[in-house]
């Protein structure tokens, strides 16, 4: 498994998590290069199908990052995210996809270090889980 290079997507809300990822950069906090950010306006606009699409295309893990509860730029958008993602995880589990490949977390615009930590730990977790079995199929 030494040459397994996990490929991971991260949906980051524009207002907090994307800015947190930028702050990590500005602070030059080094992290593994496996996570690719897709910017969305709010974590609440991450449709489950985006995540499913990524996973069925062989992506090894998906992070959904939003503002901390109470800090969503759209007030309570992330309350919905907090309900949706666990539901999505359940569905994926039912479908035989390890739900640990999906992770929801909150990263504020001031938390460059937390972003680094979340990314580093998630890459490690996915490394442990091994490649997404759907990699070979890609439907």
């Amino acid at each position: 498994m030494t040459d397994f290079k996990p490929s991971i997507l991260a949906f980051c809300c524009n207002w907090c998590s994307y800015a947190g990822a930028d702050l990590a950069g500005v602070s030059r906090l080094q992290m593994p290069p496996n996570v690719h950010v897709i910017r969305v306006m709010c974590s609440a606009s991450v449709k489950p199908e985006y995540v499913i699409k990524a996973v069925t295309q062989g992506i090894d893990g998906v992070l959904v990052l939003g503002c901390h509860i109470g800090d969503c730029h759209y007030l309570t958008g992330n309350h919905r995210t907090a309900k949706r993602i666990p539901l999505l995880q359940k569905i994926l589990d039912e479908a035989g996809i390890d739900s640990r490949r999906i992770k929801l977390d909150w990263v504020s615009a001031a938390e460059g270090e937390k972003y680094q930590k979340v990314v580093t730990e998630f890459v490690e977790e996915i490394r442990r889980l091994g490649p997404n079995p759907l990699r070979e199929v890609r439907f």
Partner: protein
Amino acid sequence: MADNTDNDSAKSSIGLYLCRCNGEISKYIDLDRIADNLKSIENVKVVGIHDALCSREGQTFLKEEKEKHGFERAVIGACSPNIQGIIVGKALEEKGLNKYLFEQVNIREQCAWVHPDIDKATAKALALINGGLRRVLTLEPMEDVEISILPSALVIGGGVTGMQAALDIAAAGFKVYLLERTEELGGRAYKLSMTFPTHNCGICCMQYCKECVFTPKIEDVLQDEKIEVMLNSEIESIEGGFGNRHITVKAPDGPREFDVGTIIVATGSKTFDPSDLPELNYSSPDVITTVELEQLIVKQREKGGSIERPSDGKVPKTINFIQCVGSRDRAKGNLHCSLVCCTYAIGQARELVKLIPDATVYIHYIDLRGPYRGFEEFYDAAKQEGVQFVRGRISKIYSTGGKLFVRAEDTDAGALLEIESDLVVLSVGQEPAQGSEKIVEMLHLQTDIDEFIKDINPMFPPEFRRGIYAAGCAQGPKGIRYSIDDAKSAASEVIRLMRDGTVKMPRITAKADEFRCRGCGRCVDVCQFDAITLIEDGKGGQIAKVDEVRCEGCGTCTVACCNKAMTIIGYAIPQVIANVMGLVEEAGQ
């Protein structure tokens, strides 16, 4: 990218430009390799690399390139779009590129600066840019939303902040509705006996005090023809969006309705209620708050004589001030510092020493905070005048045998003190005004960790506030001077908006597809901004319609819609999926 031919935009051409950022990117990412890899991709008409696209030379370069190659869409691989993005695309926009056909890919903050291995960073940048290329082809040309701003303002709260804002806006010629829920204007400052830093008549100039040489401000407000003052009145409801909001006010003589273009929230603060903390013994008549002491001082001014304590009218000879009551300790109220309490308590202590020359006045403090000009001198004068400063927390205030005691620690002397006290004054901190959460909800404002209204970074473009400003203590504890500053800056922003009369907002709003929408109304239920209504579709059914002024573009409705009818412009399913696929192509190997 070979499977891209079936889509209309396949014909459209992309200009791809990579920025070295004066080495900040090119040191960590092999841009030439990326350019080589991507130049042969269909739709990519031209690939260019520049030292600094945001510089004047870079902007000229982009303009020339646009003229020379005439591409319809552009992808820029450079810094974060949230940092310099607004600048980088400007040149292309000037040369006729629709700004909605532009995608800036972040290869600096989220790539070059965080990955030490040039090969890996290059591979990631390639994937990110590929995602951007795929995405840009799905974007549609668009115009900004133009919003008109009604030329009238609502100011909620008639304290110093609200009055100052109202006066400024009125002076600029606009109609102002000034709403105050009590029976008089002036707010807290009006009830203070003296104020820092003059230790005299308030800088707000509204005191009854005889020394006041300035024109009382309340009169100015009442006499201004452009200001309609509504006393004993509260907001009933607010409807509408940026630039045009319909206000219903509950006034003593029935409801009152009007429309405004802008709003300033100046609801101020309330003070912490010490009865929540039994160790303070606030139920004892001679344990009072600083607010109550103000009333005693005002009473003394009117009546003459000395200060009289509440229980028996005796002139107090030993007085203890307790600082940070309800502040700086989450377990005992709030975590935030109320900023003005050290200052005003010192002012009150000085006044007491002056009124009762043989009194001993202690101030028990954790540390003194007065980040104001003149504070150090004020503090020094208090020490000269005999005020005793004791560093340390108090553990309790208790009564026994008809006497009042303060048990305190003096950390400088390393001693525990039991001080018999005639009067104890609690320097209570500030919290958001009663009911301000209702206003926050009606206006969709955000609050901060301290529950006060969030201070939006003033560097953000003014459109971010959607015509609503919070000022003064509504935005956190502060002194009068700073409240006035706040009021003036909010007023000037509001005036500018109303003078311009219109504002352009990026069109990142939801849109319902009339063919897919079944009128189920799920989106209506989830939208917090009341931006969606169901309208007749002309065929006997209903469809969703989004008010693009009210919609803030969060995308919550798009997930709620089971029929894929609702999308956010620029973030529709194909647009996000294209981005995902672009990343998968390169990263998922």
